[in-house]
């Protein structure tokens, strides 16, 4: 069916969509009486202009890679996991429990166990909606959304009533021991002779996110389970014909999805805050949906889209800090990007397809 070369499909269309979204954003900025060129300059320097800026951009991107991968894996089984927010919240709980449980002597010991805790808790939070979907047909979009609220309330209760150190006024856990302190990008790059800003939160979790990209790629396109997930996603009757068990496959896809979302907490809770606070996820679960959408549910695409959204997030924060452009406007820009790369994909695609068609005809 496709009349276009692959590069146009994968690169050109998202690029044009982005440019259109940027132009519209510029109009909005003009509309509130600010200078769009200056704003873009500030965003670029603020998010990419220094190792300090990169440190934040990559920190946010790490979150979005995890949540984006979570949405992507579920989507291959045609499950729309909107519950990344709640699964990441529970992942945070897993990380915190692991970090507080033992006086960890070294981060290298703490990291794998904390990651396991994050993944297990995230997966467990996804398991209930997954089971309800697979067994009872309760729509996963509805149940995962509801589970986001339950997760927030649960964490609220636990932080206030259970995990808060006695005497503290702050609904958060105690600070983790120093042994759980994860190396930052500064620590990691210094031995290689690369100077990286010291004061930024980007940490070794970024590498974990990259590894997750590779692992998801292996899972989806190389493994038997991935084959079954994709087959089920495309056609349930066909999956049943082939002896693939829908309930089991749905469960696996959602457990892996929830685990990936949970892993995000390694970055935020262990890598940055070093304690568990309320709302440490900050909407990254939802941005993951946009990231997966823009990245076409492919790990490489998710990676690139996550960097883009990290840029928007960090650049937007800088804008809000140094100009009169309100932070809400950044949300508008993000929304425009999502709208054009996701929802209005066909608006760019169709004329472009026609263009390629007429080019081909002209040659023939």
């Amino acid at each position, binding site marked *: *069916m496709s*009349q276009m070369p692959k590069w146009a499909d994968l690169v050109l269309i998202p690029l044009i969509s982005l440019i259109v979204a940027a132009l519209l954003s510029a109009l909005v900025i003009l509309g509130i009486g600010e200078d769009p060129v200056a704003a873009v300059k500030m965003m670029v320097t603020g998010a990419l202009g220094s190792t300090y800026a990169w440190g934040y951009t990559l920190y946010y991107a790490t979150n979005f890679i995890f949540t984006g991968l979570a949405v992507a894996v579920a989507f291959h089984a045609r499950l729309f996991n909107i519950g990344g927010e709640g699964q990441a919240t529970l992942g945070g709980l897993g990380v915190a429990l692991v970090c507080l449980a033992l006086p960890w002597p070294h981060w290298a010991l703490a990291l794998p166990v904390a990651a396991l805790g994050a993944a297990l808790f995230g997966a467990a939070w996804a398991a209930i909606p997954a089971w309800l979907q697979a067994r009872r047909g309760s729509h996963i979009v509805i149940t995962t959304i509801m589970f986001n609220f339950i997760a927030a309330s649960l964490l609220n209760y636990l932080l206030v009533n259970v995990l808060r150190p006695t005497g503290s006024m702050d609904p958060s856990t105690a600070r983790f021991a120093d042994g759980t302190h994860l190396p930052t990008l500064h620590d990691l790059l210094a031995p290689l002779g690369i100077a990286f800003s010291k004061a930024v939160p980007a940490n070794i979790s970024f590498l974990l996110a990259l590894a997750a990209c590779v692992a998801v790629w*292996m899972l989806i396109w*190389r*493994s*038997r*389970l991935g*084959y*079954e997930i*994709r*087959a089920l996603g*495309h*056609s349930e*009757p*066909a999956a*049943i*014909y*082939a*002896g*693939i*068990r829908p309930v089991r496959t749905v469960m696996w896809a959602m457990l892996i999805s929830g685990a990936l979302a949970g892993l995000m907490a390694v970055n935020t809770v262990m890598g940055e805050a070093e304690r568990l606070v309320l709302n440490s996820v900050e909407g990254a679960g939802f941005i993951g949906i946009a990231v997966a959408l823009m990245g076409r549910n492919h790990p490489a695409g998710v990676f690139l889209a996550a960097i883009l959204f990290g840029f928007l997030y960090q650049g937007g924060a800088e804008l809000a800090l140094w100009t009169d452009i309100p932070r809400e406007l950044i949300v508008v820009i993000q929304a425009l990007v999502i709208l054009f790369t996701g929802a209005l994909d066909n608006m760019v695609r169709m004329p472009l397809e026609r263009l390629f*068609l007429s080019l*081909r*005809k002209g040659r*023939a």
Partner: protein
Amino acid sequence: MAADAGTGTSSAPAIELRCISKAFGPVRANRDISLVVRRGTIHGIVGENGAGKSTLMSILYGFYKADAGEILIGGRPVQIGDSQDAIRAGIGMVFQHFKLVEPFTVLENVILGTEDGALLKPSLAKARGTLRQLAADYELEVDPDARIEDLGVGMRQRVEILKALYRQADILILDEPTGVLTPAEADHLFRILENLKSQGKTIILITHKLREIMAATDTVSVMRRGEMTATLRTADTSPAELAELMVGRKVLLRIDKSPARPGRRVLEIEKLCVTDAQGIARLSDVSLSVRAGEILGIAGVAGNGQSHLLEVLGGMRPATGHVRIDGKELDLSGPGCDGRSRRAAGIAHVPEDRQREGLIMPFHAWEDSVFGYHSDPALQSAPGLMDNARIRSRAGDQMARFDVRPPNPDLAAQSFSGGNQQKLVLAREIERNPDLLLVGQPTRGVDIGAIEFIHRRILELRDAGKAVLLVSVELDEILGLSDRIAVMCGGRIMGERLASDTDETELGLMMAGMKGKAA
């Protein structure tokens, strides 16, 4: 805008197409098609899938706009921009897949889109009168107050015809109208068409069944690869000539086969029952057996339990009763009831709907070449990891052996034609060398050339001493391919016959629910 075509001179042809061309991208679906359909005749159009029949009719009905060419209705040139224009020009269309609102009554469906005002009552009353008149004129009795969902397919089709006539169609186009009908229902349909013809209506009949063309039409046009290759008087031609014109070479219409040499009982089915989620019995006490080296054909009108039988045997649906393969009992409802354990028991399954079940359409052909067998340890490079390189190279060889065109394993399954998709499925299932092959509708939507190939492969498997269970709604195929035939109606076996010992009339009666004499 549509010109009023109702007043053309009676000597002018009902439809004249002049040099119609239509391209979709690089595909030229219709090339310089010219066609004259005389008033008051039944005009057949035959051609393989993808020959351009549907495109041509869609142009005539306003779904597509032709790139070039002219349409004349009753001698006057018309522009048909949408289906409203087509209806105004007196063209009615009966689609292969009915376009009826199921919970509505016949009457409500008939007036749908032609209501006179905001209130329904006057339109309904008017339609009731018109419907009574039409029923009397054309033998088209349908209860106007029956709900569509309560009607059988034959009746639904009549409603579609009534809809067209209610809109004062002078020209009726029927697209593959007999695909879902019993032979008796099909005969009735042809009587109705005769009747319509005698009252001056013009009918265009699109079908791939040459027998129907020979029986029902006055004139027949053959399409091949987007071109109109011939228009002949039906009386002057023969099925063999038409088939040759369609395919472009000589085709063997009859299936040549040696007598079967049945051996041991491979499949034994005893008292198989299936009740669906609505509590309706879909299979009742079905008992059958298939021997090695024979083909058992299951004849029946679509929806009489054959699909359920295949699904039970393929492990896709639980059931009660007993099924044994070489004496070993299959698990019909427990944890061992899935496609994987059936394959392990030596059953291969070519499902009825290859696009919905047999293939994952967006998958590469090589990925689909192991679908259902993907857990085979021989296909894993490490536990849980697929050996994609090996699967890919095997797929390429397999496609070459089964003459899949193009033999490129990297193409998506959906980019192959229907016949080649079927060959992909058949290759996968037959090359596993099963003890029992289940085949559902092996040649539905498959070109004549590929039909021959597919039939030969199924017969080869039989001659290699394997058991084959064939389900098909094409009686010709059942009669030609099977050694024994069991007829199903309403989820029951109506009787069994030796293929050499029965004919279409007898099977047709049994398909309609008449118990055959004991076999």
